[in-house]
């Protein structure tokens, strides 16, 4: 038996390796996706993203400025060797706008992976189900790997999957709200039905929210605001990374049945045997 590996390998790493997340044919070992908005600086953002262990990082195309490449643009900070960049269409209010943004991004060399966001309501930033579905159909037909941010609606998630989306990304609660997994009951149905990974996106406020989503079978979670606006974003990123793994392990291990009363160790009918 090797004397080094047993002391340096975290058993949870072995689980990650044996239980990869597959999105659109790409394989990932981290199930925590992170966003890049609301950070105080690019330096803090990079430190938090690295601490999170995330392999998929989403960036708003409206924040990307190709004319400033190499001069402090947000993409300069994200090492493509380390992170799979997931451009998102936030700010789009119609399917056409989202499609146009995704195409511009692809033409600009950002690849064909896209997080679809169509949010015509600036107050709650809730996704427009009709426009999202329409955009998903257009983008899939155009060869994109589409990860749609959507309402926690079981039928909508079915429809998005049928449209060829690589995941569905139902919201946990309103984006940026840190309110936690308010849509738990709906997400449970979505997870049970889904043939693609379910990524709980938006609203997760503390690490235990991520653990809760993972325990009920989400394939991954996406967290941004909770990390970005924490007093210590790096520590919060680590917290979410640990909780995401803990939740996944809890799911894989299979919890026992929930009982309302104690289960007597000496059954009352034991005398029959």
């Amino acid at each position, binding site marked *: 038996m090797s004397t080094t590996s047993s002391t340096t390998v975290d058993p949870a790493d072995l689980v990650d390796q044996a239980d990869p997340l597959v999105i659109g044919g790409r394989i990932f070992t981290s199930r925590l996706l992170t966003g890049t908005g609301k950070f105080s600086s690019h330096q803090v953002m990079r430190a938090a993203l690295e601490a999170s262990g995330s392999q998929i990082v989403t960036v708003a195309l409206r924040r990307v400025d190709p004319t400033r490449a190499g001069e402090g643009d947000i993409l300069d900070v994200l090492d493509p060797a380390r992170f799979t960049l997931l451009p998102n269409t936030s700010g789009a209010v119609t399917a056409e706008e989202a499609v146009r943004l995704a195409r511009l991004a692809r033409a600009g060399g950002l690849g064909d992976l896209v997080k679809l966001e169509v949010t015509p309501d600036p107050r709650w930033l809730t996704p427009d189900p009709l426009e999202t579905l329409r955009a998903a159909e257009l983008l899939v037909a155009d060869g994109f790997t589409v990860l749609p941010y959507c309402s926690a609606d079981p039928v909508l998630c079915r429809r998005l999957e049928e449209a060829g989306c690589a995941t569905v990304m139902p919201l946990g609660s309103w984006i940026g709200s840190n309110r936690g997994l308010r849509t738990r009951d709906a997400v449970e149905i979505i997870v049970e039905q889904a043939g693609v990974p379910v990524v709980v996106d938006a609203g997760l406020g503390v690490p235990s929210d991520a653990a809760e989503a993972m325990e009920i079978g989400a394939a991954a979670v996406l967290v941004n*605001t909770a990390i970005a*606006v924490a007093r210590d974003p790096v520590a919060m990123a680590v917290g979410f990374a640990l909780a995401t793994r803990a939740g996944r392990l809890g799911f894989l291990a299979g919890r026992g049945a929930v009982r309302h009363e104690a289960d007597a160790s000496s059954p009352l009918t034991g005398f029959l045997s």
Partner: protein
Amino acid sequence: MTTAPGRFAAELAALDLPRVAAVSHDATDGDVDRALGAEHRSIDDVAALLSPAAGRRLEELATAAREQTLQRFGRAVRLFAPLYVSNACLSACTYCGFAKDLDVVRRTLTPAEAVAEAALLVQRGFRHLLLVSGEHRVEVSADYLVDVVRRLAPEVASISIETQTWSDDTYARLVEAGVEGVVHYQETYHRERYAEVHVAGWKRDYDRRLVAVERAAEAGVRRLGIGALLGLAADWRHDVLAVAAHASWLTRRFWRTEVTVALPRIKPSASGFAPVAAVDDAAYVQAMCALRLAAPDAGIVLSTREPAALRDGLVRIAVTHMSAGSSTEPGGYAHPGESQEQFAVSDERTPAEVARMLEAAGYEPVWKDAFSLR
């Protein structure tokens, strides 16, 4: 001929602002406690936050406002620059350096000159521009604006306008050309005072101005900027309450539209106008805090009218959108000092200096947070 009152005018009349303004003077500590603790704040709660009782608890207000700002907007501040295309004006507003009867050097940029000014601003880092003009329907016609916007749209991610109000299809044409935002400050929501300071031109028509915001929203403008010019009316609390009510109404009525609010204070200008009631810095900060707590989702805009120290302080509390390195005269970026400015700026730092201040304060200066609509 004057314009018939729009829907918000009716709402405002029903609100009985004089009664609410009285609350803003008489609220007790208990009212302030309730207003601070409320999850959804009524207009009476906002009045309590504007009260002298709340003014004695400014640090508490600022803490609550800061928390709200961080939650909704994060540690990021969007930077923009005003681009004055003309100071020609057919309106006479007693406080404005562009008022039609003032003997000042007038200039309207040609579309090519406007593009050249924009290029300078782009060079300085800006991707969000606000086109500003006086009210001159011949020199700054709808055709002129559409032309300028079309020329800028490929280079500038976000274009907003602050011009005269329009009663025809101009807003729809501007949206089509690539305008993202329209800014129309009511200046004062107090009808009688409004009539005293707006003495000639279209701007004299209170209802034309107020309804223009609704017309812009109906035409598909994505971002509406509203505000009041503090120092115009005797009771600043009245106008802050009206702005809060207006923002709330617009948000409910036009669910696709984002609202930004601003509370500029009167600055010295060629008009020689003196504010009737100066709003001191502490009251100003209180107004900003109350507005943030009244309208948690609204961007709050602060221009270079205000001095550097105050801007630096307010960015930590409530402000989310800032101009920087501004010139308020047409052509003033390429050729400063050749025509009349609208008002004197106080914060004269360069855009890069303002960006460095933000970074030092723990905020990311956001130069681009939009995509070209055309």
